[in-house]
Protein backbone atom coordinates (compact mmCIF):
# COMPACT_ATOMS: atom_id res chain seq x y z
CA UNK A 1 0.00 0.00 0.00
CA UNK A 2 1.14 3.50 -0.84
CA UNK A 3 -0.38 6.50 0.98
CA UNK A 4 0.26 10.21 0.73
CA UNK A 5 -2.05 11.46 3.52
CA UNK A 6 0.32 10.77 6.37
CA UNK A 7 -2.15 8.36 7.97
CA UNK A 8 -0.21 5.13 7.55
CA UNK A 9 -0.38 2.55 10.35
CA UNK A 10 3.30 2.98 11.19
CA UNK A 11 4.28 -0.39 9.75
CA UNK A 12 5.34 0.77 6.28
CA UNK A 13 8.91 0.25 5.15
CA UNK A 14 9.32 3.94 4.32
CA UNK A 15 7.45 6.61 6.28
CA UNK A 16 7.79 10.29 5.42
CA UNK A 17 6.10 12.85 7.65
CA UNK A 18 5.62 16.61 7.14
CA UNK A 19 8.74 16.89 5.03
CA UNK A 20 9.87 20.44 4.24
CA UNK A 21 12.79 21.40 2.02
CA UNK A 22 13.73 25.02 1.42
CA UNK A 23 16.62 26.24 -0.69
CA UNK A 24 18.24 29.61 -0.23
CA UNK A 25 19.08 31.30 -3.48
CA UNK A 26 20.61 34.68 -2.67
CA UNK A 27 18.03 36.53 -0.58
CA UNK A 28 15.21 34.47 -2.05
CA UNK A 29 13.89 31.38 -0.28
CA UNK A 30 12.44 28.58 -2.40
CA UNK A 31 10.01 26.17 -0.75
CA UNK A 32 10.38 23.01 -2.80
CA UNK A 33 8.73 20.48 -0.51
CA UNK A 34 6.06 21.65 1.93
CA UNK A 35 4.63 19.16 4.39
CA UNK A 36 5.03 16.12 2.17
CA UNK A 37 3.80 12.75 3.46
CA UNK A 38 4.45 9.29 2.05
CA UNK A 39 4.13 5.66 3.12
CA UNK A 40 5.64 2.89 1.00
CA UNK A 41 5.48 -0.83 1.82
CA UNK A 42 8.07 -3.41 1.06
CA UNK A 43 7.83 -4.65 -2.52
CA UNK A 44 6.04 -1.54 -3.79
CA UNK A 45 6.96 0.08 -7.08
CA UNK A 46 6.20 3.81 -7.07
CA UNK A 47 6.67 6.34 -9.87
CA UNK A 48 6.97 10.07 -9.18
CA UNK A 49 6.00 12.49 -11.91
CA UNK A 50 5.81 16.24 -12.06
CA UNK A 51 7.01 19.21 -14.03
CA UNK A 52 10.64 20.13 -14.17
CA UNK A 53 11.67 21.92 -11.02
CA UNK A 54 8.84 20.49 -8.94
CA UNK A 55 11.27 18.83 -6.57
CA UNK A 56 11.42 15.20 -7.67
CA UNK A 57 15.20 14.91 -7.47
CA UNK A 58 15.12 16.81 -4.20
CA UNK A 59 12.73 14.22 -2.78
CA UNK A 60 14.84 11.28 -3.92
CA UNK A 61 17.99 12.83 -2.46
CA UNK A 62 16.25 13.22 0.87
CA UNK A 63 14.91 9.65 0.80
CA UNK A 64 18.39 8.36 0.04
CA UNK A 65 20.08 10.37 2.77
CA UNK A 66 22.11 12.40 0.28
CA UNK A 67 20.65 15.64 1.63
CA UNK A 68 18.95 16.79 4.81
CA UNK A 69 15.39 18.21 5.01
CA UNK A 70 14.53 21.60 6.52
CA UNK A 71 11.87 19.92 8.66
CA UNK A 72 9.99 16.65 9.01
CA UNK A 73 11.10 13.06 9.36
CA UNK A 74 11.99 10.06 7.21
CA UNK A 75 11.94 6.61 8.74
CA UNK A 76 13.18 3.57 6.85
CA UNK A 77 12.84 0.10 8.35
CA UNK A 78 12.67 1.67 11.79
CA UNK A 79 15.67 4.02 11.35
CA UNK A 80 15.00 7.74 11.58
CA UNK A 81 17.59 9.05 9.14
CA UNK A 82 17.11 12.82 9.35
CA UNK A 83 19.02 13.10 12.62
CA UNK A 84 21.88 10.75 11.85
CA UNK A 85 25.47 11.96 11.88
CA UNK A 86 27.17 12.19 8.50
CA UNK A 87 29.22 9.04 9.04
CA UNK A 88 26.23 7.05 10.29
CA UNK A 89 24.21 8.22 7.35
CA UNK A 90 26.96 7.12 4.95
CA UNK A 91 27.00 3.66 6.49
CA UNK A 92 23.20 3.52 6.44
CA UNK A 93 23.18 4.46 2.75
CA UNK A 94 25.68 1.75 1.88
CA UNK A 95 23.54 -0.78 3.67
CA UNK A 96 20.02 0.22 2.57
CA UNK A 97 19.95 2.28 -0.63
CA UNK A 98 20.74 1.55 -4.27
CA UNK A 99 20.88 4.56 -6.60
CA UNK A 100 20.30 4.65 -10.34
CA UNK A 101 20.79 7.96 -12.15
CA UNK A 102 19.82 9.28 -15.54
CA UNK A 103 23.46 9.72 -16.57
CA UNK A 104 24.51 6.24 -15.30
CA UNK A 105 27.46 7.83 -13.44
CA UNK A 106 29.86 4.96 -13.94
CA UNK A 107 33.55 5.40 -13.15
CA UNK A 108 35.18 5.58 -16.61
CA UNK A 109 38.52 4.08 -15.51
CA UNK A 110 36.92 0.95 -14.06
CA UNK A 111 35.51 -1.97 -16.05
CA UNK A 112 31.89 -3.05 -15.71
CA UNK A 113 33.13 -5.54 -13.14
CA UNK A 114 35.07 -2.87 -11.22
CA UNK A 115 32.11 -0.50 -11.20
CA UNK A 116 29.72 -3.11 -9.88
CA UNK A 117 32.25 -4.24 -7.29
CA UNK A 118 32.59 -0.73 -5.78
CA UNK A 119 29.90 -1.03 -3.07
CA UNK A 120 31.26 -4.43 -2.08
CA UNK A 121 34.73 -3.01 -1.42
CA UNK A 122 33.22 -1.50 1.70
CA UNK A 123 32.02 -4.86 2.99
CA UNK A 124 33.96 -7.65 4.64
CA UNK A 125 33.42 -9.99 1.70
CA UNK A 126 36.44 -11.90 0.46
CA UNK A 127 37.71 -11.36 -3.05
CA UNK A 128 36.16 -14.62 -4.24
CA UNK A 129 32.80 -13.77 -2.66
CA UNK A 130 32.85 -10.33 -4.23
CA UNK A 131 33.51 -11.91 -7.62
CA UNK A 132 30.61 -14.30 -7.14
CA UNK A 133 28.20 -11.49 -6.23
CA UNK A 134 29.32 -9.25 -9.09
CA UNK A 135 29.04 -12.03 -11.66
CA UNK A 136 25.62 -12.96 -10.34
CA UNK A 137 24.15 -9.45 -10.66
CA UNK A 138 25.78 -8.84 -14.02
CA UNK A 139 24.02 -12.05 -15.02
CA UNK A 140 20.70 -10.68 -13.74
CA UNK A 141 21.08 -7.57 -15.93
CA UNK A 142 22.19 -9.70 -18.89
CA UNK A 143 25.80 -8.53 -19.17
CA UNK A 144 27.71 -11.68 -18.26
CA UNK A 145 29.75 -11.28 -21.43
CA UNK A 146 30.73 -7.66 -20.76
CA UNK A 147 32.61 -8.01 -17.47
CA UNK A 148 35.84 -6.51 -18.73
CA UNK A 149 34.36 -3.77 -20.85
CA UNK A 150 34.94 -0.17 -19.93
CA UNK A 151 31.95 2.22 -19.89
CA UNK A 152 33.08 3.85 -23.15
CA UNK A 153 32.88 0.43 -24.82
CA UNK A 154 29.21 -0.02 -23.84
CA UNK A 155 25.97 1.38 -25.27
CA UNK A 156 23.85 3.72 -23.16
CA UNK A 157 21.42 0.94 -22.33
CA UNK A 158 24.27 -1.36 -21.32
CA UNK A 159 25.82 1.35 -19.18
CA UNK A 160 22.52 1.81 -17.39
CA UNK A 161 22.31 -1.93 -16.81
CA UNK A 162 25.78 -1.86 -15.26
CA UNK A 163 24.55 0.99 -13.06
CA UNK A 164 21.55 -1.11 -12.04
CA UNK A 165 23.83 -4.04 -11.24
CA UNK A 166 25.92 -1.70 -9.07
CA UNK A 167 22.77 -0.52 -7.31
CA UNK A 168 21.55 -4.02 -6.44
CA UNK A 169 24.85 -5.83 -5.81
CA UNK A 170 24.89 -5.11 -2.08
CA UNK A 171 21.22 -6.16 -1.81
CA UNK A 172 19.86 -2.83 -0.55
CA UNK A 173 16.50 -2.36 1.17
CA UNK A 174 15.17 -0.16 -1.64
CA UNK A 175 16.15 1.37 -4.97
CA UNK A 176 15.94 5.04 -5.94
CA UNK A 177 15.91 5.76 -9.68
CA UNK A 178 16.08 9.30 -11.03
CA UNK A 179 14.86 9.26 -14.65
CA UNK A 180 16.60 5.95 -15.41
CA UNK A 181 15.41 5.98 -19.02
CA UNK A 182 15.73 9.72 -19.58
CA UNK A 183 18.79 9.43 -21.74
CA UNK A 184 17.87 6.28 -23.66
CA UNK A 185 16.10 5.51 -26.93
CA UNK A 186 12.71 3.82 -26.86
CA UNK A 187 13.98 0.27 -27.21
CA UNK A 188 16.71 0.54 -24.58
CA UNK A 189 14.25 2.28 -22.28
CA UNK A 190 11.83 -0.64 -22.66
CA UNK A 191 14.61 -3.10 -21.79
CA UNK A 192 15.59 -1.12 -18.71
CA UNK A 193 11.97 -0.99 -17.56
CA UNK A 194 11.61 -4.75 -18.14
CA UNK A 195 14.61 -5.19 -15.92
CA UNK A 196 13.27 -2.90 -13.19
CA UNK A 197 9.96 -4.73 -13.28
CA UNK A 198 11.74 -8.05 -12.89
CA UNK A 199 13.63 -6.69 -9.90
CA UNK A 200 10.30 -5.86 -8.29
CA UNK A 201 8.41 -9.00 -9.22
CA UNK A 202 11.07 -11.69 -9.19
CA UNK A 203 13.49 -10.29 -6.63
CA UNK A 204 11.02 -8.53 -4.35
CA UNK A 205 12.78 -5.16 -4.53
CA UNK A 206 11.12 -1.93 -3.41
CA UNK A 207 11.54 0.72 -6.10
CA UNK A 208 10.92 4.48 -6.07
CA UNK A 209 11.39 5.99 -9.50
CA UNK A 210 11.25 9.51 -10.87
CA UNK A 211 10.28 9.69 -14.53
CA UNK A 212 8.97 12.01 -17.22
CA UNK A 213 8.09 9.09 -19.45
CA UNK A 214 4.43 7.92 -19.20
CA UNK A 215 5.40 4.51 -20.63
CA UNK A 216 7.86 4.02 -17.82
CA UNK A 217 5.38 5.27 -15.25
CA UNK A 218 2.81 2.77 -16.52
CA UNK A 219 4.92 -0.07 -15.22
CA UNK A 220 4.72 1.15 -11.62
CA UNK A 221 2.01 -0.02 -9.20
CA UNK A 222 1.34 3.54 -8.16
CA UNK A 223 1.95 6.85 -9.89
CA UNK A 224 2.26 9.91 -7.67
CA UNK A 225 2.44 13.51 -8.82
CA UNK A 226 4.48 16.14 -7.11
CA UNK A 227 2.43 19.31 -7.01
CA UNK A 228 3.13 22.47 -5.00
CA UNK A 229 5.42 20.67 -2.64
CA UNK A 230 3.23 17.66 -1.83
CA UNK A 231 2.43 14.32 -3.45
CA UNK A 232 -1.01 13.65 -4.92
CA UNK A 233 -2.41 10.44 -6.35
CA UNK A 234 -3.82 10.03 -9.86
CA UNK A 235 -3.93 12.73 -12.50
CA UNK A 236 -2.03 15.76 -11.30
CA UNK A 237 0.51 18.16 -12.72
CA UNK A 238 1.29 15.93 -15.70
CA UNK A 239 4.66 15.17 -17.18
Amino acid at each position, binding site marked *: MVRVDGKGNGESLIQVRDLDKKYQRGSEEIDVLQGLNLDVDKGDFVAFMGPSGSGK*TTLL*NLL*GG*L*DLPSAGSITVAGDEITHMS*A*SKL*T*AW*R*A*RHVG*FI*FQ*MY*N*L*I*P*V*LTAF*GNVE*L*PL*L*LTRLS*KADRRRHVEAVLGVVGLSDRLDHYPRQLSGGQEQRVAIA*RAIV*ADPTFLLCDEPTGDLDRKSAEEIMDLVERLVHEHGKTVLMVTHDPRAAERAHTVLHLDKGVLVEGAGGGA
Partner: protein
Amino acid sequence: MKFFRLVLAQLLRKKVRTTLTIGSFTVALFLYGLLVTIRGAFSGGADVAGVDRLTVINKTSLIMPLPFSYRDRILRVPGVSGVTYATWFGGVYQDEKNFFPQFGVDKDTWFDVYAEYVLPKDQREAFLRDRQACLAGKSLAKRFGFKVGDRLPLRGTIWPGAWEFNVAGIYEGNRPEVDTTGLLFRFDYLEERRQFGKGTVGWYVVRLANPDDAVKVTRTIDEGFANSPFETLTQTEKAFATAFAKQMGNIEFLVMTIGSVVFFTLLLVTGNTMAIAVRERTGELAVLKTVGFSGPGVLALILAEAVLIAGQGGLIGLGLAKLFTLGGDPTRGLLGTFYLSWGSLGLGFMLALGVGAVAGILPGVAAMRLRVADALRRV
Protein backbone atom coordinates in the same frame (compact mmCIF):
# COMPACT_ATOMS: atom_id res chain seq x y z
CA MET B 1 44.80 -3.59 -0.85
CA LYS B 2 41.46 -3.90 -2.60
CA PHE B 3 41.36 -0.09 -2.81
CA PHE B 4 44.78 -0.01 -4.42
CA ARG B 5 43.34 -0.94 -7.79
CA LEU B 6 41.01 2.02 -7.54
CA VAL B 7 43.92 4.38 -6.91
CA LEU B 8 45.96 2.80 -9.67
CA ALA B 9 43.11 3.10 -12.17
CA GLN B 10 42.91 6.82 -11.43
CA LEU B 11 46.66 7.23 -11.95
CA LEU B 12 46.45 5.49 -15.30
CA ARG B 13 43.55 7.64 -16.45
CA LYS B 14 45.73 10.55 -17.58
CA LYS B 15 49.00 8.83 -18.30
CA VAL B 16 50.78 11.89 -19.65
CA ARG B 17 49.84 14.00 -16.67
CA THR B 18 50.78 11.28 -14.20
CA THR B 19 54.10 10.76 -15.96
CA LEU B 20 54.87 14.47 -15.94
CA THR B 21 54.08 14.75 -12.25
CA ILE B 22 56.21 11.74 -11.44
CA GLY B 23 58.88 13.37 -13.60
CA SER B 24 58.76 16.53 -11.49
CA PHE B 25 59.45 14.44 -8.41
CA THR B 26 62.22 12.60 -10.21
CA VAL B 27 63.99 15.81 -11.21
CA ALA B 28 63.52 17.42 -7.79
CA LEU B 29 64.78 14.41 -5.85
CA PHE B 30 67.71 13.92 -8.22
CA LEU B 31 68.66 17.53 -7.53
CA TYR B 32 68.16 16.95 -3.81
CA GLY B 33 70.54 13.99 -3.96
CA LEU B 34 73.25 16.03 -5.65
CA LEU B 35 72.81 19.00 -3.31
CA VAL B 36 73.09 16.81 -0.24
CA THR B 37 76.20 15.18 -1.67
CA ILE B 38 77.82 18.51 -2.45
CA ARG B 39 76.90 19.86 0.97
CA GLY B 40 78.55 16.78 2.49
CA ALA B 41 81.65 17.33 0.39
CA PHE B 42 81.95 20.93 1.58
CA SER B 43 81.18 20.29 5.22
CA GLY B 44 84.79 19.09 5.47
CA GLY B 45 83.79 15.84 7.07
CA ALA B 46 81.80 17.55 9.81
CA ASP B 47 79.23 14.80 9.50
CA VAL B 48 81.71 12.01 10.04
CA ALA B 49 83.81 13.82 12.65
CA GLY B 50 84.61 11.60 15.62
CA VAL B 51 82.75 12.68 18.73
CA ASP B 52 85.63 11.45 20.84
CA ARG B 53 88.23 13.71 19.21
CA LEU B 54 89.38 17.26 19.93
CA THR B 55 91.55 19.45 17.76
CA VAL B 56 94.10 21.74 19.39
CA ILE B 57 95.26 24.65 17.23
CA ASN B 58 97.12 27.90 17.76
CA LYS B 59 94.67 30.42 19.18
CA THR B 60 95.93 33.17 16.89
CA SER B 61 95.45 31.29 13.67
CA LEU B 62 95.12 27.82 12.26
CA ILE B 63 98.27 28.35 10.21
CA MET B 64 100.42 29.25 13.21
CA PRO B 65 102.29 26.28 14.72
CA LEU B 66 102.39 24.86 18.24
CA PRO B 67 105.52 23.69 20.12
CA PHE B 68 106.34 20.01 20.03
CA SER B 69 106.70 20.08 23.80
CA TYR B 70 102.94 20.48 24.23
CA ARG B 71 102.47 16.87 23.33
CA ASP B 72 103.48 15.44 26.67
CA ARG B 73 101.63 18.11 28.62
CA ILE B 74 98.41 17.39 26.73
CA LEU B 75 98.88 13.67 27.33
CA ARG B 76 98.90 14.29 31.08
CA VAL B 77 95.51 16.05 31.08
CA PRO B 78 92.96 13.78 32.80
CA GLY B 79 90.48 12.29 30.34
CA VAL B 80 92.91 12.25 27.41
CA SER B 81 93.61 8.74 26.13
CA GLY B 82 95.78 9.59 23.13
CA VAL B 83 97.47 12.43 21.27
CA THR B 84 98.73 12.69 17.75
CA TYR B 85 99.74 15.62 15.57
CA ALA B 86 100.02 16.75 11.98
CA THR B 87 101.51 19.50 9.87
CA TRP B 88 100.20 20.90 6.61
CA PHE B 89 102.80 20.50 3.87
CA GLY B 90 101.30 22.30 0.89
CA GLY B 91 103.45 20.63 -1.79
CA VAL B 92 102.71 20.71 -5.50
CA TYR B 93 102.49 17.51 -7.53
CA GLN B 94 103.60 18.26 -11.10
CA ASP B 95 101.23 21.18 -11.50
CA GLU B 96 99.36 23.63 -9.23
CA LYS B 97 96.02 22.41 -10.49
CA ASN B 98 96.70 18.90 -9.14
CA PHE B 99 95.90 20.11 -5.66
CA PHE B 100 95.47 17.59 -2.85
CA PRO B 101 96.14 17.90 0.86
CA GLN B 102 99.36 16.46 2.30
CA PHE B 103 100.08 16.01 5.98
CA GLY B 104 103.18 15.15 7.86
CA VAL B 105 101.89 12.84 10.60
CA ASP B 106 103.30 10.94 13.55
CA LYS B 107 103.96 7.42 12.29
CA ASP B 108 103.37 5.79 15.69
CA THR B 109 100.18 7.41 16.95
CA TRP B 110 98.26 8.62 13.89
CA PHE B 111 96.35 5.40 13.24
CA ASP B 112 95.55 4.93 16.92
CA VAL B 113 93.63 8.19 16.93
CA TYR B 114 92.19 7.89 13.43
CA ALA B 115 90.68 4.45 13.68
CA GLU B 116 88.50 5.08 10.60
CA TYR B 117 91.55 4.77 8.34
CA VAL B 118 92.28 1.17 7.48
CA LEU B 119 95.53 -0.10 6.05
CA PRO B 120 96.85 -3.63 5.47
CA LYS B 121 99.31 -4.72 8.14
CA ASP B 122 102.26 -5.18 5.77
CA GLN B 123 101.78 -1.70 4.32
CA ARG B 124 101.70 -0.21 7.79
CA GLU B 125 104.93 -2.00 8.62
CA ALA B 126 106.48 -0.70 5.41
CA PHE B 127 105.42 2.82 6.47
CA LEU B 128 107.21 2.36 9.80
CA ARG B 129 110.38 1.00 8.15
CA ASP B 130 111.03 3.67 5.53
CA ARG B 131 111.62 7.30 6.56
CA GLN B 132 110.52 8.53 3.14
CA ALA B 133 107.37 6.42 3.08
CA CYS B 134 104.01 7.94 2.36
CA LEU B 135 100.43 6.66 2.30
CA ALA B 136 97.94 7.73 -0.35
CA GLY B 137 94.21 7.76 0.27
CA LYS B 138 92.21 5.45 -1.95
CA SER B 139 90.51 8.18 -4.00
CA LEU B 140 93.79 10.08 -4.34
CA ALA B 141 95.50 6.95 -5.60
CA LYS B 142 92.68 6.40 -8.05
CA ARG B 143 92.85 10.01 -9.24
CA PHE B 144 96.53 9.90 -10.15
CA GLY B 145 96.99 6.17 -10.54
CA PHE B 146 99.42 5.87 -7.61
CA LYS B 147 100.49 2.34 -6.76
CA VAL B 148 102.47 0.83 -3.93
CA GLY B 149 106.17 1.15 -4.77
CA ASP B 150 105.75 4.34 -6.84
CA ARG B 151 108.06 7.24 -6.26
CA LEU B 152 106.15 10.44 -5.65
CA PRO B 153 107.90 13.80 -6.16
CA LEU B 154 106.47 16.99 -4.62
CA ARG B 155 107.68 20.57 -4.99
CA GLY B 156 107.67 22.18 -1.56
CA THR B 157 106.06 25.61 -1.21
CA ILE B 158 106.29 26.24 2.52
CA TRP B 159 109.54 24.31 2.69
CA PRO B 160 111.00 24.84 -0.78
CA GLY B 161 112.87 22.24 -2.71
CA ALA B 162 112.26 18.87 -4.28
CA TRP B 163 110.79 16.30 -1.89
CA GLU B 164 110.51 12.66 -2.77
CA PHE B 165 108.33 10.04 -1.17
CA ASN B 166 107.82 6.30 -1.64
CA VAL B 167 104.23 5.10 -1.79
CA ALA B 168 104.21 2.42 0.94
CA GLY B 169 100.48 1.87 1.07
CA ILE B 170 96.97 2.92 0.12
CA TYR B 171 94.60 3.57 3.00
CA GLU B 172 90.84 3.22 2.88
CA GLY B 173 87.99 4.44 5.04
CA ASN B 174 86.02 2.02 7.15
CA ARG B 175 82.90 3.82 5.89
CA PRO B 176 82.24 5.36 2.45
CA GLU B 177 81.95 8.85 3.97
CA VAL B 178 85.57 8.87 5.13
CA ASP B 179 87.75 11.28 3.17
CA THR B 180 90.51 9.43 1.33
CA THR B 181 91.69 12.23 -0.95
CA GLY B 182 94.79 13.08 1.09
CA LEU B 183 98.42 12.02 1.37
CA LEU B 184 100.07 11.13 4.69
CA PHE B 185 103.81 11.04 5.14
CA ARG B 186 106.18 10.80 8.08
CA PHE B 187 106.58 13.87 10.24
CA ASP B 188 110.08 12.82 11.32
CA TYR B 189 111.24 13.02 7.69
CA LEU B 190 109.83 16.56 7.38
CA GLU B 191 111.40 17.55 10.69
CA GLU B 192 114.79 16.22 9.63
CA ARG B 193 114.88 18.02 6.29
CA ARG B 194 113.10 21.34 6.81
CA GLN B 195 115.09 24.53 7.24
CA PHE B 196 112.76 26.32 9.66
CA GLY B 197 109.90 25.57 11.98
CA LYS B 198 111.81 22.77 13.68
CA GLY B 199 110.33 21.70 17.00
CA THR B 200 106.78 22.67 16.08
CA VAL B 201 103.71 20.91 14.73
CA GLY B 202 100.68 22.27 12.89
CA TRP B 203 98.04 21.02 15.30
CA TYR B 204 97.32 18.30 17.80
CA VAL B 205 94.51 15.81 17.73
CA VAL B 206 93.37 14.50 21.10
CA ARG B 207 91.43 11.33 21.70
CA LEU B 208 89.08 11.35 24.68
CA ALA B 209 88.59 8.39 26.96
CA ASN B 210 84.97 9.47 27.29
CA PRO B 211 83.24 11.87 24.85
CA ASP B 212 81.24 13.34 27.74
CA ASP B 213 84.44 14.92 29.06
CA ALA B 214 84.90 17.08 25.94
CA VAL B 215 84.02 20.37 27.64
CA LYS B 216 86.13 19.72 30.70
CA VAL B 217 89.20 18.56 28.76
CA THR B 218 88.89 21.47 26.33
CA ARG B 219 88.97 23.95 29.19
CA THR B 220 91.85 22.23 31.01
CA ILE B 221 94.05 22.25 27.89
CA ASP B 222 93.36 25.86 26.93
CA GLU B 223 93.77 27.12 30.51
CA GLY B 224 97.02 25.21 30.86
CA PHE B 225 98.56 27.15 27.95
CA ALA B 226 97.00 30.52 28.72
CA ASN B 227 99.39 33.46 28.89
CA SER B 228 102.11 31.50 27.08
CA PRO B 229 103.59 32.61 23.73
CA PHE B 230 101.57 29.83 22.10
CA GLU B 231 98.03 29.97 23.42
CA THR B 232 95.74 27.19 22.21
CA LEU B 233 92.21 26.86 20.92
CA THR B 234 90.74 23.44 21.55
CA GLN B 235 87.55 22.41 19.74
CA THR B 236 85.62 19.28 19.03
CA GLU B 237 86.54 17.89 15.65
CA LYS B 238 83.07 18.68 14.39
CA ALA B 239 83.35 22.36 15.35
CA PHE B 240 86.80 22.43 13.78
CA ALA B 241 85.60 20.87 10.52
CA THR B 242 82.64 23.23 10.39
CA ALA B 243 84.82 26.27 10.96
CA PHE B 244 87.21 24.98 8.31
CA ALA B 245 84.33 24.55 5.85
CA LYS B 246 83.15 28.10 6.51
CA GLN B 247 86.30 29.28 4.78
CA MET B 248 84.83 27.85 1.60
CA GLY B 249 81.90 30.26 1.84
CA ASN B 250 78.45 29.52 3.08
CA ILE B 251 77.76 26.46 0.96
CA GLU B 252 75.29 25.19 3.52
CA PHE B 253 73.12 28.29 3.12
CA LEU B 254 73.27 28.09 -0.66
CA VAL B 255 72.33 24.43 -0.68
CA MET B 256 69.46 24.94 1.76
CA THR B 257 68.11 27.87 -0.26
CA ILE B 258 68.17 26.03 -3.56
CA GLY B 259 66.71 22.93 -1.93
CA SER B 260 63.84 24.87 -0.34
CA VAL B 261 62.97 26.57 -3.62
CA VAL B 262 62.98 23.22 -5.43
CA PHE B 263 60.66 21.58 -2.92
CA PHE B 264 58.36 24.58 -2.73
CA THR B 265 58.00 24.63 -6.51
CA LEU B 266 57.35 20.90 -6.46
CA LEU B 267 54.62 21.43 -3.88
CA LEU B 268 52.90 24.05 -6.04
CA VAL B 269 53.09 21.95 -9.19
CA THR B 270 51.80 18.81 -7.51
CA GLY B 271 49.16 20.66 -5.52
CA ASN B 272 47.84 22.19 -8.71
CA THR B 273 47.82 18.85 -10.51
CA MET B 274 45.94 17.18 -7.70
CA ALA B 275 43.45 20.05 -7.55
CA ILE B 276 42.71 19.63 -11.26
CA ALA B 277 42.52 15.85 -10.93
CA VAL B 278 39.97 16.14 -8.15
CA ARG B 279 37.91 18.86 -9.81
CA GLU B 280 37.44 16.94 -13.05
CA ARG B 281 36.32 13.95 -11.01
CA THR B 282 33.67 15.68 -8.93
CA GLY B 283 30.87 13.51 -10.31
CA GLU B 284 32.74 10.28 -9.68
CA LEU B 285 33.63 11.28 -6.16
CA ALA B 286 29.95 11.96 -5.59
CA VAL B 287 29.17 8.47 -6.87
CA LEU B 288 31.71 6.93 -4.51
CA LYS B 289 30.05 8.73 -1.64
CA THR B 290 26.63 7.70 -2.87
CA VAL B 291 27.52 4.03 -2.74
CA GLY B 292 28.84 4.47 0.77
CA PHE B 293 32.44 5.69 0.72
CA SER B 294 32.90 7.97 3.74
CA GLY B 295 34.40 11.46 3.60
CA PRO B 296 37.64 10.35 5.27
CA GLY B 297 37.70 7.35 2.92
CA VAL B 298 37.61 9.59 -0.13
CA LEU B 299 40.31 11.80 1.42
CA ALA B 300 42.46 8.72 1.96
CA LEU B 301 42.06 7.67 -1.69
CA ILE B 302 43.24 11.07 -2.90
CA LEU B 303 46.13 11.19 -0.45
CA ALA B 304 47.14 7.70 -1.51
CA GLU B 305 47.16 8.83 -5.12
CA ALA B 306 49.36 11.85 -4.38
CA VAL B 307 51.71 9.89 -2.15
CA LEU B 308 52.02 7.13 -4.74
CA ILE B 309 53.05 9.63 -7.41
CA ALA B 310 55.51 11.24 -5.01
CA GLY B 311 56.95 7.93 -3.89
CA GLN B 312 57.51 6.66 -7.42
CA GLY B 313 59.09 9.88 -8.65
CA GLY B 314 61.13 10.18 -5.48
CA LEU B 315 62.49 6.65 -5.76
CA ILE B 316 63.52 7.13 -9.38
CA GLY B 317 65.15 10.51 -8.69
CA LEU B 318 67.04 9.28 -5.64
CA GLY B 319 68.08 6.14 -7.47
CA LEU B 320 69.50 8.20 -10.32
CA ALA B 321 71.29 10.49 -7.87
CA LYS B 322 72.80 7.49 -6.10
CA LEU B 323 73.96 6.04 -9.41
CA PHE B 324 75.43 9.40 -10.35
CA THR B 325 77.44 9.66 -7.13
CA LEU B 326 78.62 6.08 -7.46
CA GLY B 327 80.10 7.14 -10.79
CA GLY B 328 82.51 9.21 -8.73
CA ASP B 329 83.31 12.81 -8.06
CA PRO B 330 82.92 14.85 -11.27
CA THR B 331 85.82 17.12 -10.18
CA ARG B 332 88.00 14.00 -10.15
CA GLY B 333 89.01 14.12 -6.51
CA LEU B 334 88.88 17.78 -5.57
CA LEU B 335 85.93 17.18 -3.27
CA GLY B 336 86.86 15.51 0.02
CA THR B 337 83.99 13.08 -0.07
CA PHE B 338 81.42 12.51 -2.75
CA TYR B 339 78.99 10.17 -1.15
CA LEU B 340 75.21 10.01 -0.88
CA SER B 341 74.44 8.19 2.36
CA TRP B 342 71.47 5.89 2.97
CA GLY B 343 70.37 8.29 5.69
CA SER B 344 70.17 11.16 3.20
CA LEU B 345 68.36 8.94 0.71
CA GLY B 346 65.85 7.98 3.39
CA LEU B 347 65.33 11.60 4.36
CA GLY B 348 64.82 12.53 0.70
CA PHE B 349 62.22 9.80 0.31
CA MET B 350 60.37 11.00 3.40
CA LEU B 351 60.49 14.56 2.05
CA ALA B 352 59.02 13.42 -1.26
CA LEU B 353 56.21 11.54 0.48
CA GLY B 354 55.63 14.59 2.69
CA VAL B 355 55.34 16.91 -0.31
CA GLY B 356 52.94 14.42 -1.92
CA ALA B 357 50.77 14.28 1.19
CA VAL B 358 50.68 18.05 1.63
CA ALA B 359 49.87 18.52 -2.06
CA GLY B 360 47.01 16.04 -1.76
CA ILE B 361 45.57 17.39 1.44
CA LEU B 362 43.74 20.49 0.17
CA PRO B 363 42.02 18.82 -2.80
CA GLY B 364 41.47 15.78 -0.59
CA VAL B 365 39.70 17.79 2.07
CA ALA B 366 37.61 19.47 -0.62
CA ALA B 367 36.61 16.01 -1.83
CA MET B 368 35.90 14.92 1.72
CA ARG B 369 33.57 17.88 2.25
CA LEU B 370 31.89 17.53 -1.14
CA ARG B 371 28.11 17.44 -0.72
CA VAL B 372 26.75 14.67 -2.89
CA ALA B 373 23.43 16.30 -3.75
CA ASP B 374 25.17 19.45 -5.02
CA ALA B 375 27.88 17.54 -6.86
CA LEU B 376 25.39 15.33 -8.72
CA ARG B 377 23.48 18.39 -9.87
CA ARG B 378 26.65 19.74 -11.44
CA VAL B 379 27.31 16.71 -13.64
